[in-house]
């Protein structure tokens, strides 16, 4: 792999972010969806405990969307339109393109974290130590990565036309089955075990552990759960990208 110049990486990240953020038809729904859900279920309908519990879960739900879409749909589009081919002809290493897209997804995660946390503090009276806020933000950033990888595998596998529908087909059921909308303990036992293969379940448990609201499994299992999903996806995506030419 040839070396990446910092200047070029900055260009890549800014260009990808500008390109995505100028598309208000994408930005507004992506941000509004988790905000509206949180304000309705987490702020208007619950007590402070529910508000804190759902804050974690809607942050996870919120960071999944842009990561899945910017990779799943936009990579499929770049590939089909030939932009990816043009970039592959340049000396730019593949990882730079992916880092640029990851940067955009992390920007979205930051915005989601700021928006939902503000609602939680201002309207629901949620309070926690600065350290805990820091941990929640770190979780939001970490939680972006598995979905970048999953999105990437999808973007490299499906056509630009089918990618949006397929991303939705994965996004919403995964959120539901990970217990992001309803507490996982309300599910039948078989479904609770099924959630173990979903990174969003593990992220949710990690987040809830900050507030001591998790199910109580050793956190190592949850970290392992995230890693065991992210790494194979990353491997598969790299393989697909390299064989694409």
């Amino acid at each position: 792999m040839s070396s990446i110049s910092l200047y070029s990486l900055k260009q890549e990240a800014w260009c990808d972010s500008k390109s995505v953020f100028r598309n208000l038809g994408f930005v507004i729904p992506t941000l509004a969806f988790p905000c509206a859900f949180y304000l309705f279920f987490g702020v208007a309908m619950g007590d402070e405990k529910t508000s804190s519990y759902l804050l974690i879960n809607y942050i996870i739900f919120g960071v999944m969307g842009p990561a899945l879409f910017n990779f799943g749909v936009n990579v499929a589009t770049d590939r089909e339109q030939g932009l990816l081919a043009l970039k592959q002809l340049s000396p730019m290493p593949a990882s730079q393109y992916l880092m640029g897209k990851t940067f955009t997804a992390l920007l979205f995660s930051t915005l989601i974290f700021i928006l939902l946390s503000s609602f939680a503090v201002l309207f629901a009276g949620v309070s926690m130590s600065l350290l805990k806020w820091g941990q929640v933000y770190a979780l939001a950033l970490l939680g972006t990565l598995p979905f970048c990888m999953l999105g990437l595998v999808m973007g490299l596998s499906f056509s630009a036309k089918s990618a949006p529908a397929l991303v939705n087909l994965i996004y919403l059921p995964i959120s539901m089955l990970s217990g992001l909308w309803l507490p996982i303990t309300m599910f039948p036992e078989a479904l609770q075990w099924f959630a173990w293969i979903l990174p969003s379940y593990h992220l949710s448990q990690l987040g809830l552990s900050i507030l001591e609201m998790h199910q109580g499994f050793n956190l190592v299992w949850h970290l392992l759960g995230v890693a065991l999903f992210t790494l194979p996806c990353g491997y598969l995506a790299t393989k697909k990208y390299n064989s694409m030419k």
Partner: protein
Amino acid sequence: MTNSAVVSVKNLHHSYGNKAVLKGLDFSLQAGRVYGFLGANGAGKTTLINLLLGRLKASQGRIEVLSSTAGSAAAKAKVGAMLQIGSLPANLTVLEQLNLFASYYESPMPVSKALRLSDLNAHENTPFSKLSGGLKQRLLFAIAIIGDPQLVFLDEPSLAMDVNARQQMWQTIRQLKTQGKTVVLTTHYMEEAEALSDELFILNEGKIIAQGSPSELSHNMQLSEVSFACELNESELSTLLPEWSWQVNEGKAATRCKSPNTLLKQAFANGLSCDLLSVKPSSLEQTFISLTETAEHENKTPTNSASDKSAKEQAA
């Protein structure tokens, strides 16, 4: 083959599965020249370009681009390409896209120069989605040269351009040549190939069937189109003048031949009056058509008509 060859291709074969697409190509390209690759759809042009760019791996044979393996990091740094592309990011401006691509290279061309060479100065702040078809082509051209490459591949460069823009593009391509850059052009516009290329390669069914400068190609072929008024039908005329293959339509006989003098001498000797006689040199386009037609014809039913013979001499 000299050491200064920018591209050297030896015994290149390529097949997709069982289907052979390129069947033994040998050529080398020198610095500071424009090369045109012509061929009907399916002749193997796109496959060849993709191999030269390193987007495909050759089934057999050797390709060297600027003394490196095609598609290696070293080659990529010195090669630029203009591909037929659906779209660049729709809401990034011309300037933003060029700055981004310039950042990929260690010593790129200044963005202002690329803008000037592709005549995009007036549009630098226009987002891609607002550019006309011709302007989009110019941006793709600018991206192809932004790395200040030694070798530039241009695929249908003046597609969707009006006459003025096309002239401008030709001017720029000639400018690249005077700077010592090698340009490889694939195009469907025969006029463009003729105007720009120092050397033409005509590909047919995976083989180079003719190679030379545009004037050489038409000259060596020496194909002239001869036609005159004639009351005989095709078979009568063919018995009278059996060396040529005739087409008779509504009292007008026509053929293509290498030496119109011989033909006319025999025609007069046979008592034809040849009223409304017309003799004109075959254009490059017609040369191309007759070359590829003949090659196809030969592949199917080997015959020995006069025009076939002349094309065969040429292909050899």
